[in-house]
């Protein structure tokens, strides 16, 4: 398949692994963070760790939107799902994420009408088919997924679908990266930048990483050769004493991103003053709520719910990706 097969070529992979081996300084340890959960998935799926020299370590970043949802937001979602007449919709990977007292799947077992959807458009279709019931979409994800929610809200508004509501848990990628880099305990040599988020926001928002923190970042795709090439590019920057934003994923990422998507996000969403992250606590301006223009579609304004916020220390033990 085009854009896939050529990035899974085993011979090229071995050649890149050889180049990486030749690029590392003996005795130096390299710690690189892959920001995106999609990269983590690829690293495990293709055994990329095993192709790297022993002194190159890949550290998993905060870029899995399901893993970083705090228990309090799950609890709030469950409270809305239990409201009479509500059809509660979410992506399948949210169903088993634990709240403080069960999951959305548990709520479904208890009688709440919780349905899995593949896109917010599916939730809108359910709303149109059930005009006498409120249909709430539990929206999660970074700037990659938020445009889909935004477009669906625009469509709902244009078509006058008033029983479609969104509980927004969308988050943005730059604030948690800055929070990580501000941590005094962190020692990283470079970043593999999130390829899919970057198709929307571009590579430019990551300029603060080399500018303010002196670390290289390479925006990368998700096939094995993409990840290996990104590691090679980071090591080359380190060897040359350079520190830049580079784009390995040129087949879909433009330096300034997708301006149409950014315009839609700016219209439909507004930044929250702060948002809670499972395992990381509250981070300023890291979450998106619906803008005033879309207040009629905001489930948080329509329903009374507990507005739970749980101590971060409880989240760390509850962030069980293997259970998700």
């Amino acid at each position, binding site marked *: *398949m*085009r*854009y*896939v097969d050529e990035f899974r070529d085993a011979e090229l992979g071995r050649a890149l692994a050889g180049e990486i081996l030749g690029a590392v300084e003996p005795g130096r340890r390299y710690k690189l963070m892959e920001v995106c959960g999609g990269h983590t998935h690829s690293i495990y799926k293709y055994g990329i760790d095993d192709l790297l020299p022993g002194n190159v370590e890949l550290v998993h970043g905060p870029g899995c939107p399901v893993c970083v949802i705090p228990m309090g937001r799950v609890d709030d979602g469950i409270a809305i799902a239990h409201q009479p007449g509500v059809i509660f919709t979410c*992506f399948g990977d949210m169903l088993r994420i634990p709240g403080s007292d069960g999951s959305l799947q548990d709520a479904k077992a208890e009688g709440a009408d919780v349905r899995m959807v*593949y*896109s*917010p*458009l*599916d939730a809108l279709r359910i709303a149109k088919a059930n005009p006498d019931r409120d249909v709430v979409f539990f929206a999660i*994800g970074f700037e*990659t*997924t938020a*445009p*889909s*929610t935004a*477009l669906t809200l625009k469509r709902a508004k244009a078509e006058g679908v008033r029983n479609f509501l969104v509980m927004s848990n969308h988050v943005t990628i730059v604030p948690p990266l800055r929070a990580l880099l501000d941590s005094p305990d962190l020692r990283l040599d470079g970043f593999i930048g999130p390829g*899919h988020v970057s*198709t*929307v926001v571009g590579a430019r928002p990551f300029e603060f990483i080399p500018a303010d923190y002196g670390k290289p970042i390479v925006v990368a795709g998700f096939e094995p050769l993409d990840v290996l090439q990104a590691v090679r590019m980071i090591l080359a920057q380190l060897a040359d004493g350079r520190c830049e934003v580079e784009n390995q994923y*040129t*087949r*879909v*990422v*433009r330096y*300034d*991103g*997708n*301006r*149409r*998507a950014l315009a*839609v996000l700016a219209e439909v969403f507004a930044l929250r003053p702060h948002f809670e992250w499972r395992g990381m606590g509250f981070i300023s301006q890291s979450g998106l709520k619906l803008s005033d223009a879309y207040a009629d579609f905001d489930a948080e304004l329509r329903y009374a719910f507990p507005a739970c916020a749980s101590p971060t220390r409880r989240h760390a033990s509850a962030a069980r990706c293997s259970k998700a």
Partner: protein
Amino acid sequence: MRVRQVDEQRGLALCEDADGQRSSVEIALVDAVAVGDELLVHAGTAIARAASADEVGRGGERSESG
């Protein structure tokens, strides 16, 4: 996903993934797409159209920046 059919009026495209599964995709956020184009799709919405090697060489002129 590969574009199989375009409905410009509704802003939708019928796309097919690597396994042959077909689904309807929002295309409002990308430049005009044609049958055979490869789209990067998230949650039912195309967020980028893959550039050809030639376009990458030219700096991705036909980008989704409109």
